[in-house]
């Protein structure tokens, strides 16, 4: 399969500031739903700069019985030219038990000590940012108590 090589190119970072968390009682299958509101944030990088539109959405994670967390966040990025872009950020996280315990206590943890990867898709109007609507992007996350910083890369 020659010619099917792939690499990643850094495109931007997003810092998402949180506003409130909820964690719901487990369903009969042991899955717990959560909610984390998006207060705002910043977008910065070679391919996109702007902000996270305040109060524009949130994350609705699934906490699985085996410790894996599946993320499902929708909120709005606003580029410096005013273009509003809906981000649907889906991802997953898992970590060794001692790291999970620290995360649940909201203690600082090094991002290399856990696996937290996202694969966002974007709703974007035609124009200078429409490459987001036809590019496969993956990201890694650095999680903090009050915010997460996502580093995004385009598949090239």
């Amino acid at each position, binding site marked *: 399969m020659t010619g099917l090589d792939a690499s990643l190119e850094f495109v931007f970072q997003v810092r998402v500031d949180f506003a409130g968390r909820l964690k719901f009682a487990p369903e009969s299958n042991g899955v717990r739903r959560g909610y984390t509101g998006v207060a705002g944030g*910043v977008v910065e990088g070679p391919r996109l700069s702007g902000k996270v539109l305040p109060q524009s959405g949130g994350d609705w994670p699934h906490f699985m019985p085996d410790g894996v967390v599946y993320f499902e966040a929708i909120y709005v990025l606003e580029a410096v030219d005013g273009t509003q872009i809906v981000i649907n950020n889906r991802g997953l996280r898992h970590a060794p038990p001692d790291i999970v315990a620290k995360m649940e206590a909201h203690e600082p943890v090094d991002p290399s000590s856990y696996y937290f990867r996202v694969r966002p898709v974007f709703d974007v109007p035609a124009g200078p940012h429409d490459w987001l609507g036809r590019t496969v992007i993956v990201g890694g996350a650095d999680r903090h108590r009050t915010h997460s910083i996502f580093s995004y890369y385009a598949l090239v």
Partner: protein
Amino acid sequence: MALGVLVPLKLEHVFDLRLSFGEELPLGPTSLAHDRVFHLVSGGTVSGPRLQGVIVPNSGSDAPCRSKDRAVIEGEWLIRAADGTVIRMTNSGYGPGAPMSAPWRADVPEYAGASLHLSPKFEAPDGPHAWLNRTMFVGKGDRRRIDASIRIFAAM
């Protein structure tokens, strides 16, 4: 100016798929695309360092949704690993668009040469293949009218 620590990502080649297509079922234009075609997956093989097996014959379809600026890839089929485990694969991603006047021809030059950028997902039972549920993947695809080659990378 970076917002924080850049989480480094690297791609690890995990396996390759070779798909064969059978009947082609055009839906025709929809509100989202000028061309929606289902290609039944008649079979194929899976090979590589982390997974080996076959594509279960007639277990799904590949259905690109093609408009003038992009093709949205949607596909789903089953893999039977060499140890007998059945694994569901859901494929998504993007390919190049095509003018409305262009008939569907998967073998025209713009569809060849690693032009499909993919982000597949897998659903595997507990056991040796469960890592597929806990990993984010990207892929590159080379699509022809009767077959396709897809190379899968884990985002580590």
